[in-house]
């Protein structure tokens, strides 16, 4: 059965395949390490029984352009369900669930994080400079019969033209894409101020 005719091509192919895999791995490592672009990885355990005392949903401004946004998810709501931020540069999200697993997605951006009961997800989003207008927030993990009704709205207002950069996208389309190059997920633990 052994047939060595043409087997050299197979070795060539193995080298090509290995090079493809190594190249992909290297590029992912470059983005992860050099550009610090990583998925949300930080979480702090929290007792779901004591959420009302220990977790206050809402938006708090920590400095110019710096916001802390605490969001509580539950069947079938996001609290707060309307978030307005002026000229955000750095948004520190803290999100948890009071019941089952939910999925936090800001449509049209790369913000995509699982919301796991018992844990507060903590991550930082630096929105692209041309992010502006209303964004739809949905739940992307099945959470029960009313899953499809779970939504919220994020509005980014731009007052300072210097901050908003040269290429302002003013379409206001909810489905627009953010520019990945400005996007950053850092697993930063946010201290309660």
């Amino acid at each position, binding site marked *: *059965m052994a*047939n060595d005719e043409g*087997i050299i*091509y*197979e070795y060539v*192919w*193995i080298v090509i395949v*290995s090079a*493809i*895999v190594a190249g*992909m*791995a290297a590029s*992912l*490592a470059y*983005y*992860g390490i050099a550009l610090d*672009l*990583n*998925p*949300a*990885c*930080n*979480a702090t*355990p*929290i007792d*779901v029984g004591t959420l009302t005392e220990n977790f206050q949903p809402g938006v708090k401004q920590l400095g110019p352009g710096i916001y802390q946004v605490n969001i509580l998810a539950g*069947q079938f709501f996001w609290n707060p369900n309307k978030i307005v931020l002026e000229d955000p540069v750095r948004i520190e999200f803290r999100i948890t669930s009071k*019941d*089952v*697993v939910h*999925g936090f*997605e800001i*449509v*049209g951006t*790369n*913000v*995509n*994080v*699982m919301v*796991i*009961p*018992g*844990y507060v*997800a*903590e991550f930082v989003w630096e929105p692209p400079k041309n992010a502006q207008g209303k964004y*739809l927030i*949905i*739940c*992307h993990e*099945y*959470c*029960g*019969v009313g*899953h*499809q009704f779970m*939504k919220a709205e994020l509005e980014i207002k731009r007052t300072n033209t210097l901050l908003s950069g040269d290429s302002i996208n003013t379409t206001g*389309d*909810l*489905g627009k894409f953010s520019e990945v190059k400005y996007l950053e997920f850092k*697993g930063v633990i946010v201290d309660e101020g």
Partner: protein
Amino acid sequence: MRVNEELFAKITIAFSFVIMAVGGTFGLLQALNRVPFLSLPGALDVSDPTYYRILTCHGVCLAVAIPIYWITGLAAFVSPRILKVELDKRLLALSLAMMLVGGVMATIVILAGKANVLYTFYAPMTAHPGFYWGAALLILGSWVFIAAFVKQYLQWRRLNPGVGTPIAIYGLLATFIVWIEATTPLVITVLKDFIPMSMFGKHVDVLETRTWFWFFGHALVYFWLLPVVAMWYYLIPKKLGVPLFSESMAKVAFILFILASTPVGLHHQFTDPGLAAEYKFMHTILTLIVATPSMLTGFNILATMERGGRARGGNGLLGWLAKQPWKDPVYLGLVTSMIIFGIGGITGIINASYQLNMVVHNTAWVPGHFHMTVGNMVVIGYTTITYALLADLFKRKLISKTAAYSHILLWSIGLFIFSLAYYYVGLHGAPRRTSNIEYGGLLPSTWILPMEISAIGAILMFSGGVAAVYAVLGSLLFGKTKGVAIEGMKIGNPHPETTEFNPLLENLKMWVIFAAVLIIVAYIFPFYEIFSRGISPVPPVETGLS
């Protein structure tokens, strides 16, 4: 009743197609109901929570039940004929009883609306205990079958020292090794967490149970597709009448699947908070490695096809392609499933690419991807292989060749339309697993047209599915018992099944130990992180009741 190999295979394989009819119909209903602003006539309109009930059934039936039944059936039929050693009849009977009782029990609970938890059944959402017991029984039943299979293999090995394992058997062994790797963590968490949660209200840590689930969830993928890969390696050279381009490289591919199909589960949890970036990245690298055996397979099979085509008189750069036995539905189906799997596999690399995953995680991109991989392997792969089994196992003539061709054609075209539309809306953020994506009219306008197009794809897929079920079940019920429309597998013919003995490739015990070490290394860190931080259990939430 005495259960021999043939009876076992007949029952499990025929049952798979009954399940396919049910699960496929639900799939069509889902695809139609997800189209925004489309009003459907009464019977087709599926409102919540029925939508999630049939979605659960679609996932469990097509992704868990069919593969278990069909693969064990295929192995029960093929292996005794190739190895010429019988399977243990008592284990076969026990396995069949456990798998049927378990599968039927879980399905009844789902259809009764007592387990609207989808096929991932993430805690703390809880279903009726019958769902978990049924699933556990189904899986333990498959373990009993594997015990019989391994016993048979070892017996063959004792009788045939110094002979290479036939490639079909090698592939099936790899399939079952991967299945044991996959289901062990699932059985652990179902027994330790889910059954106590649903029966006694045990509080469980959700991050921990998710990690156990995906420890299972990705290796499951390779269980689905490895038997089809084994049959590409086995049947394609046979149909062409030439030896496989490189049998040793085929075995290397299976070894890579054994090694790397399980320690990759965190790529389903990239967006889970509470798992460190380093561990997620380690699983990313392992996921890229598990793409290599598929690339080796693609090369090996295409090279075999070229060799076969040239032997049949095909000349020039691409002349060999025209000389393939395309008129044989089994051959056509095997090659079609490989092409579609190649495209679906590439989109899987995008899912697995760490940062890119943030764009597509839990969006419609994901069902676009897995219908091209597992959906294709089951509906094109399993079904066309079953056409060959009609002659060998069921002793029936295929009722209609037209049905077989339409099945392959309609389903493939429908799949391309459906999946491309889902890829597109997924990139634009449309969620998966959601009965209605209108969001009170706030949905981006970019979602609407592709979702309408996806429904056309789904209708074509459904038509192809109807043709497939008709071709198989119709032949079983009404097919002639004499004559052959499609040739069978021609086991043992024309050349002997056994091959050269390569001690390194035949030492599967060593590779299983390596795989176990790799799995432990890949999972000890994330579990250490979860437990050292202190778990955070939460109470169960009843949501399966409708």
